[in-house]
């Protein structure tokens, strides 16, 4: 970790801003704060202090979703701007599925024709969009970007870095803790002494769910998988020896980490297997897709929350394929159809389980894409549209500000790359607050949140 001095008299405020100097209670103090226990939630909320259940489900759209083809202006004036900019990437106006937000911003909107379930959920008030969200270190206008007068998030337009920034919600740190992990650091005590991590991933290792002491538990779409081949007397002997090898003291950190992972897998699989074994199958049918299978497994895990004895959970899942440099018009309909149908099935499963108001699902993605075409696709850009879904979502609305899609317009920094008007921090904090992070802890979990105008975007009830 590197230190950023903000006491250098030689630096103007502009330079400090430009170079991303942190506030005094910035990143450097984050780890220390946890260790010193200077957080109110964990202290106030011991095991058993809540009886309710809440879960967040992150659906990460890897590659950078071209979301300005997901939620499209459909009234004549705004559609024409959209079509003039997007050219051969534009969705035909007549194909858009019309939606009407409760609050009008003067435009009319439509969804990509593949998004029928999304439209139903929107119309039913279960789903909302958040417009033009992206990684920001500070609020930033197009002019400030072009003048280079405010610190930009590092490595803009790079997949890995922008994913990292979405997951950490701290643009100016390379510390590998995600906001889901930091939230779990505060709230996992609500789950008592469960051996199951508060954070569960269906998509393997990720930064989002890692906290100073919290690591996500990884499982496949088939659920927990046990170790094979330890039956009979010989098997028991073998299992004992296998465990002895895992428990051997070793100075080597890699051997330790390997043994710890295997041991964690054994313990947690047993716990999950026993909880899931008694559960009735879900009546809701999920699409036969990878995302559908991940969300189905998440639904089954939520189904057995009482058997697991958990009160707060953060799930992670997602799919790739959104990096549509090529063949966008051919590939995008299938991606959106899968997303829409999988989300629709998941929300139906939540209704079936009576957990509609207890679970909030949200999307994240590396970045938005260029509004302009590279011939048959789009390139990496910045601000994009995300969606939030659940019974506690104040749905049928578009939050934030839908940007101008005009080339060289007020939001376009160049080539149809839009400077975000809502920060990832504001988006993440709104979700974390709903899950139960207390106001006094918000600055610890989101150290840069105070730089932005809307610590709560208002999309959660």
């Amino acid at each position: 970790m590197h230190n950023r001095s903000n006491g250098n008299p030689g630096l103007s405020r502009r330079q400090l801003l430009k170079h991303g100097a942190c506030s005094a209670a910035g990143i450097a103090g984050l780890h220390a704060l946890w260790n010193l226990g200077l957080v109110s939630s964990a202290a106030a909320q011991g095991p058993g202090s809540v009886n309710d259940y809440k879960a967040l489900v992150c659906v990460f759209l890897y590659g950078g979703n071209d979301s300005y083809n997901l939620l499209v202006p459909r009234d004549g004036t705004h559609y024409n701007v959209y079509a003039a900019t997007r050219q051969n990437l534009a969705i035909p106006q007549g194909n858009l599925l019309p939606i009407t937000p409760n609050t009008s911003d003067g435009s009319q909107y439509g969804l990509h024709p593949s998004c029928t379930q999304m439209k139903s959920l929107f119309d039913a008030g279960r789903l909302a969009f958040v417009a033009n969200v992206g990684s920001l270190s500070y609020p930033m206008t197009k002019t400030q970007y072009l003048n280079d007068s405010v610190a930009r998030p590092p490595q803009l337009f790079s997949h890995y870095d922008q994913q990292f920034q979405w997951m950490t919600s701290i643009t100016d740190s390379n510390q590998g803790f995600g906001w889901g992990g930091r939230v779990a650091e505060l709230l996992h005590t609500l789950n008592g002494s469960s051996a199951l991590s508060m954070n569960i991933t269906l998509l393997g290792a990720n930064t989002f769910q890692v906290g100073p002491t919290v690591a996500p538990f990884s499982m496949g779409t088939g659920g927990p998988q046990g170790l094979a081949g330890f039956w009979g007397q010989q098997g028991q002997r073998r299992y004992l020896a296998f465990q002895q090898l895992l428990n051997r003291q070793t100075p080597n950190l890699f051997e330790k980490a390997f043994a710890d992972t295997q041991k964690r897998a054994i313990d947690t699989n047993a716990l999950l297997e026993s909880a899931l074994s008694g559960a009735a199958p879900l009546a809701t049918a999920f699409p036969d897709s990878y995302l559908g299978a991940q969300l189905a497994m998440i639904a089954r895990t939520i189904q057995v929350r009482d058997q697991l004895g958990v009160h707060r959970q953060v799930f992670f899942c997602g799919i790739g394929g959104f990096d549509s440099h090529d063949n966008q018009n051919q590939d995008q309909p299938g991606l959106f159809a899968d997303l829409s149908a999988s989300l629709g099935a998941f929300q139906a499963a939540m209704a079936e389980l009576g957990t509609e108001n207890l679970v909030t699902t949200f999307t994240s993605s590396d970045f938005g894409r260029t509004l302009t075409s590279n011939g048959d696709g789009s390139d990496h850009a910045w601000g994009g549209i995300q969606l939030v879904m659940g019974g506690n979502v104040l749905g049928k609305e578009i939050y934030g500000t839908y940007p101008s899609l005009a080339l060289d317009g007020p939001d376009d920094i160049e080539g149809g790359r839009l400077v975000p008007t809502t920060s990832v921090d504001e988006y993440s904090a709104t979700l974390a607050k709903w899950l139960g992070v207390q106001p006094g802890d918000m600055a610890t979990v989101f150290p840069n949140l105070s730089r932005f105008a809307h610590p709560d975007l208002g999309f959660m009830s």
Partner: protein
Amino acid sequence: MGRELRSSAKAAATWSAAALTILLQGCSGGSSGSGLVPGPDPPASEAQAARFLTRSTFGPSAEEIHKLSVIGYTAWFDEQRNATVSLERPPLSQLDAHGHNVSQEQRLEQWWKIALRGDDQLRQRLAFAWSEIFVVSDVASALVGDPIGVSEYYDTLARDALGDYRTLLEDVTRTPVMGRYLSMLKNQKEDLANNIRPDENYAREILQLFSIGLVKLNADGTPQLDAFNQPIPTYDQPVVEGFARVFTGWNYAGATNWDFAEWNYLPMEPWESYHEAGTKLLLDGVVCPAGQTAQQDLAFALDLVASHPNVGPFLGRQLIQRLVTSNPSPEYVARVAAVWADDGNGARGNLLAVTQAILTDPEAVQGNVTHPDTFGKLKEPLLRLTALWRAFDASFPGNKYQYWYPDDDLGQAPLRAGSVFNFFTPSYAPPGEIQDGGLVAPEFQITTEQRITSATNRFWECVFHGYQGYSNPSADTALLHINPEIGMADDPAALVEHLDQLLMCSEMSQEMRDIVVSMVTDTDPADRRQRVLEALYLIVTSPEYSVQK
């Protein structure tokens, strides 16, 4: 991004447009140059030989260990350099020519055959390492239907793995498989009337992943820092756009029109009418002149990239991570980068010399002694399995090599990563002591609770249902030849010592030895094969075997 930022005052090699003279003397036919060897040559012990072969091949066998300890490293390097290149594509093309349907499954069969049986092990091991840097993947819809193209891509890596980097960079760039994967194929010049800009995909990733990385590096791989202690980006968006314009105007060899869509595996060829003619801003203010041909622009840009001082430390460090240790010291990186910059004969990017420098470095030899806590790496799951199969000369039923989906069990398969960022990123740190210590361990990114269990279960299959003579063999499981070991089963201590030599470079701890010997001893003495299998299973699923030190 580097986790450990040093405010080092080390002067980076200065680099300017004027210093673009590059020496592209390949090593083919020439001397291997450095003559480096890791300690006494021949190796002082078979354990030293086994340790060397664990890093430089798909796994040691008793025969190879013995041979190396007789002929020595120098002769071994020479032999490997001159070994005939094993290729995946020609057999597939032959099938295709005979009207057979060729699939990615058959590509995997060729990969297994070469990894397990190829004589050019060093080259193939490096090709595999490069396949995790120059990533293309058959999970992409653009590639899944083109096993011949993908196998030719792998062959390209194998042919160039011990050659020079500049050649490798251009050969990869021009494969139609990379052309489709990162959309340089049919990338066209600007068309303002239709708001069409050149595609930035290949431009961005060749810089970020295949050559220089995101931030300026010192010669030892640590990031250079500015006055605010911040890393310094190597390029920005206008540079990406400049390279995007360079990579315009390329199409299939033999294309009869721009929209030509018949796949072939030959290097892409230029189409000048689709190539951007104007100037292009490239790295550090260097401008590619207007009016050049697509080929001239490509050569100019690749020369510039390959001569950037970041390349040696950036890629050298990653090769060290693939072959030797996850957290090389800056000094180790610097020594490798120095060979990258000049192989001793004035050639830059001599990959054989770089490979030798990596494998023979004092830290590679002594790191386990000097830094027992942090030296080494988690073995890639696929390499844990190739090592087992090579150690026991395992052969697939009917010699068909039909292990098509190792990714299902092990989380990886050759040229089958989820994205261009590979199965794992060089900077991945698993939560816990490794992350807290500022260290990385990339392979843990695919060693989650889910994957570790599926791999352990796969090893159960490969041992208990994977020996010669097993009654119900599976087409995806090679069968171990363990008759010699069965002959040792009456002496558990001798058996375990033998397995230690073969699989663990004689590095097994006494405590582990006691546990395994005890398990063998407690197994029915009359069932000798079972005794061998029990020992094998415990070893290949153990933390000690899984970590290369």
